């Protein structure tokens, strides 16, 4: 069963020229995919379509068994919240919540994420994941007191808690130094393996490419030629 299946998808704002046209993109469930391309190649737009933030003009966007083009905005939001974990490049955390509250947020918001927890309580699950990521001692600190590396690991915890079936990471390592990148990537892949989540990793840094099952260049799948 495909995790992501895009068919004849095109996207553009209003009457402007299309920014993205993808004849076909198929990612199987459980795959570790490395998506790369220069800036302006349409990476962000592609992620927006898969996450259900943007609506395709034409074509089919099937994610985890649901055709997003036929879902309402709020149904897509719920789909994203309960089936996907999302990691940003930086500033992943809500500044006024503690580390623990940040990690637990998807479970607070979505019953599906809550139900998939194997530990006896959300708190216990947070502690378990946090100790896996070596951030257990920071749980009750305000997020502003954490280093960038620690913040990114908290972001992993929030993305994988409640076992979402798809984890999207948008340039999550670009704010980290070389050593931390390695460590971050190792932990991310390990945790996705544990929950058998599909991992869509976006980066312009080719050096990380070899750690993935499959590498997709956005410039190759996007038929729109950037002007």
């Amino acid at each position, binding site marked *: 069963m495909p995790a992501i299946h895009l068919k004849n998808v095109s996207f553009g704002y209003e009457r402007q020229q299309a920014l993205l046209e993808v004849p076909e993109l198929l990612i199987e469930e459980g795959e570790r995919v490395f998506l790369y391309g220069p800036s302006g190649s349409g990476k962000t737009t592609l992620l927006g379509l898969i996450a259900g*933030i943007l609506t395709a003009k034409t074509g089919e966007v099937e994610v985890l068994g649901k055709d997003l083009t036929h879902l309402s905005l709020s149904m897509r939001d719920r789909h994203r919240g309960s089936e996907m974990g999302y990691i940003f490049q930086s500033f992943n955390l809500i500044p006024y919540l503690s580390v623990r509250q940040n990690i637990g947020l998807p479970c607070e918001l979505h019953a599906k994420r809550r139900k998939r927890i194997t530990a006896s309580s959300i708190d216990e699950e947070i502690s378990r994941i946090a100790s896996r990521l070596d951030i257990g001692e920071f749980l009750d600190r305000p997020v502003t007191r954490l280093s960038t590396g620690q913040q990114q690991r908290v972001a992993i915890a929030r993305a994988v808690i409640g076992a979402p079936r798809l984890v999207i990471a948008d340039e999550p390592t670009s704010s980290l130094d070389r050593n931390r990148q390695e460590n971050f990537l190792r932990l991310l892949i390990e945790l996705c393996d544990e929950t058998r989540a599909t991992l869509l990793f976006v980066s312009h840094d080719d050096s990380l490419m070899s750690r993935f099952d499959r590498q997709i260049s956005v410039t190759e799948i996007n038929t729109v030629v950037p002007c």
Partner: protein
Amino acid sequence: MLVLLRLAFSSLRSRAVTTSLTVFSIALSVLLLIGVDRIRQGVQEGFAGTLSQTDLVVGARGGSLPLLLYSVFHIGTASNEISYSSYEHFRDHPAVLWTIPFSMGDSFHGYRVVATDDNFYEHYRFRRDHSVEFAEGGRAEGIFDAVLGSEVAKQFGYHTGAKLVLSHGLEQVSLFKHADKPFTVVGVLKQTATPVDRTIYITLYGEEAMHVGWEGGTPPALGEAPPTTQIRKEDLHIDTISSFLVRTRSRITTLLLQREINTYKGEPLTAIIPAYTLEDLWNMLGYVDVALSLVSSAVLVVGLVAMLISLYTALNERKREIAILRAVGLHARQIFALFVLESVLITTIGAVVGLVAAYGLLWAFHGPAESHFGIPIAMVGLSTRVMIYLGLVVAGGTLMGCVPAIRSYRIALIEGLNAF
């Protein structure tokens, strides 16, 4: 929804300084708005509660408001006396159930001395059906007997048996003292929370006796004053009083009697119905009330705009937060709700703080207002007007909150996960 509420609460708490300043400004305007209204109603009820079961107040010809103010609230002075014979005429009138005569003009350290008779203890009523009661002692019956209001007794620490030297006139520091004729405290009244508490009651005979030898308006020369022991009730003749209260046998006769008094041939008199005169007073002060309410509403608008500004300017820093919330599955509508909720929380907390502060201040100051300015303020509960005010404040806050919320909604929809 509960999660949103918790998020809104945490978000506000993280900006504690701005939040508390905004809450403060809204609380202040609510305090003003409600304070003005509560004082208005409190004063009205306080005044209305001071005198009950009295149908007419009668005094020398003059304005009805001054008559009511000096004879019941002890504010201002009587313009003229009325003769005791006129009083007797109406006291014995068939339509009259009872009367209470008042004679004023002397004081004790700023507290009024009111000469009256037994009818006062018998018939005077306040707050519907409360009558004056004694904390100790009993009624003033002898010529040099005095009964103290609770506040006077407390102020000077007087109990029955204490001696008082009353002053001529109403000045706090009086030039002329009735030092030759001291009074003895025979009773102390229980607290009434009306002007009665700040009054010294003596008998009409006492008032006359005090002024024996004062016919020229100044104290008698040394050696000329008759010794107090020689003054007897039988020798005293009551000539004038200041005013009197009337209870008629039936409501119907009140108006007839009022007309009869107002057209009394023997002497120019004025009879007023206290409730109507108070109503006139409130109508007169209505403009002040409206003006104060307008000012407080303006302060409220300023408070709400201050909140709007603080939430709106914070939006740019919160674009990241919006993107994160979108990523964890919040709909743009929920982000709108989150921002509105913050305004609702701020205004609700502000309104509650303002309400509590208004009642706190009212409670703290109703005593001093009464003793220093003679304005009785009753502690009044919530009224529909207050509830409407509070509702308007929260509604106004919600409406104001929609402005940043609409912008956050647009950021959430348009910028999606890319809002930096």
